[in-house]
């Protein structure tokens, strides 16, 4: 039984429909991310789960109970905001204790729970400080402790790392995941950063224009995107216009390749073929079966990676190769072959725009 279920959720603001036919089932203890560009409706879905917005249609269930019409204050859902939203008039200790006081716990229970939560985020020594005396990263950790203190059923985080600088972002990201695992709390995390979503989630929901375009594990999303949008948004991508050439062959880049299945489509149907930069190489590696001829445009040395731009069939293709001590930088203007395997070819149902 899934713990959080969204079925047929729709949401309109006036004539503007921002969430459409959104279905999702989250397992107990699962960490799910909503990933998508700004304005695609991630926050709106999260706010409907929290109870800050009412869906125009559909139901939301938590632990089997329909909470669609329940006010936010009675849903027992912990929420972490991008802008921290700590209570400025309260110390760290009082911020974390707030939900416990509301729940009517005794002073001793509150003190014990607050100490436990501050230990969890390693900020016990700052218990008496006020929010304005803390750094952004510290404030967000306090916000996390405050949300978790009353033992909510669900934890929701809306771009909690977006306001922080890069280094803190990664370390806090790992902290969030560690704490989430320790407590086993079912979590929904909103981000527009694909690396963030891929690195901490059990599953990722890629959203596009108010819909869940694809739902899957980070590996599924990255390796087997099912729509052109997902393929393009998650990671970098080279795309080719392609068409079905035969039962098991596709034509793209001026060549025909067999052994690429596209069941049920007639010859001549247009498709998109996508190749990740890291799937391509200018040297034939073991397992490389297919290649396209091209000409090196330029190349750059990025430390662990050598990045080359190669002109293939009239378009520019990015290639990322691991650097090795004996690797030579490709020379601009030189003719070359671009190698890849059949498995690397992502065949997507939509034609590129």
């Amino acid at each position, binding site marked *: 039984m899934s713990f959080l279920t969204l079925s047929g959720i729709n949401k309109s603001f006036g004539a503007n429909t921002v969430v459409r036919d959104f279905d999702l089932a989250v397992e107990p203890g699962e960490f799910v991310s909503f990933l998508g560009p700004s304005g695609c409706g991630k926050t709106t879905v999260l706010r409907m789960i*929290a109870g800050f917005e009412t869906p125009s249609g559909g139901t939301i269930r938590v632990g089997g109970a329909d909470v669609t019409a329940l006010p936010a*204050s009675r849903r027992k859902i912990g929420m972490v905001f991008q802008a921290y939203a700590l209570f*400025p008039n309260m110390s760290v200790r009082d911020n974390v204790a707030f939900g416990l006081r509301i729940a009517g716990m005794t002073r001793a229970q509150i003190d014990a729970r607050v100490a436990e939560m501050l230990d969890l985020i390693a900020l016990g020594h700052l218990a008496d400080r*006020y929010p304005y005396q803390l750094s952004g990263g510290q404030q967000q950790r306090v916000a996390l402790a405050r949300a978790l203190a009353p033992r909510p059923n669900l934890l929701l985080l809306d771009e909690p790392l977006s306001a922080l600088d890069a280094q803190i972002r990664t370390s806090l990201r790992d902290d969030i995941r560690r704490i989430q695992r320790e407590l086993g709390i079912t979590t929904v995390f909103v981000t527009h950063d694909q690396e963030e979503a891929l690195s901490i989630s059990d599953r990722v929901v890629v959203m596009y224009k108010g819909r869940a375009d694809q739902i899957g594990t980070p590996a599924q999303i990255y390796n087997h995107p099912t729509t052109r949008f997902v393929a393009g948004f998650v990671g970098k991508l080279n795309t080719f216009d392609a068409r079905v050439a035969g039962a098991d062959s596709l034509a793209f880049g001026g060549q025909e390749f067999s052994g690429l299945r596209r069941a049920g489509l007639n010859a001549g149907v247009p498709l998109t073929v996508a190749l990740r930069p890291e799937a391509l190489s200018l040297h034939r590696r073991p397992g490389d079966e297919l290649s396209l001829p091209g000409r090196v445009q330029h190349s750059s040395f990025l430390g662990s990676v050598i990045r080359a731009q190669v002109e293939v069939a009239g378009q520019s293709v990015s290639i990322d190769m691991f650097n090795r001590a004996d690797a030579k930088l490709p020379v601009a203007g030189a003719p070359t072959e671009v190698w890849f395997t059949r498995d690397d070819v992502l065949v997507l149902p939509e034609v590129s725009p």
Partner: protein
Amino acid sequence: MAEVSRRPPLLSILIALAGAAFFLVPLIATFNFSLRMTRGELSFAAYRSVFESDTFLSVLGFSTVASLMAIALGALIVVPTAYWVRLRLPHMRPLIEFLSLMPLIIPPVVLVFGYVRLYGTSSILPLTMTETGTNILLVIGYVVLSVPYMYRAVDNGMAAIDIATLTEAAESLGASRPRTIAFVIFPNIRSAIVSGAFLTFSISLGEFVITSLLNRPAFGPYLVQMGQDYAYQPAALAIMAFAFTWVCMVLMELFATRRPGQRLLQWRAPRTVEKAKS
């Protein structure tokens, strides 16, 4: 531009001095005059005479109580209104702001005549018939006069914090709307309310038009009466009123710049970091 600003701004200094003189010379003259009640020497006799008067103490007491009630009532009306407008009706803010300015546009005389007609002898709510009723009208009048200041102060206080997100944070932690207002919103705009309160206090303490037309034994009419009957005492009263206003301003400033966890007059000591564990 840069060249001008490097020269000593002689003209600016002159203007500032002229402005200061415009303000300070009458003040000093009044103060000097207030000290001359006893012929041939400078003394605080006029002040003593004011303080020895029973009327002074009773009108001051009356006005203080009325002003404090006006502050409480004003805050109770303005804070939830400003909160609700910011949270739920943000597009209405310009309208509400305009409405809050009405008391500055409509003269108090009009207001009080309206009251007397509406709540007079023949009305269904004849407030002016009883002492308490008239006092209630007076407090309401003070509230109306102070709304422009109270609303602005509170609204500015709310602009400084993200009340929408703070409200949501409190609600997700289980707090009801009244609790959210009481424990999260109110404490965070307390300094704004205090500024509004001091402004309300200084307006209503010396208010004359409404007070005298409702015939209340308050400070404003007393000041005017003194001005007609005596020479030195009114000067002393003016100086005291002036000093009082300044004390209010200073207190407002202190409250406004205070940060959470600091006492009012606390010296900003380097903060001490406590040992871990609570």
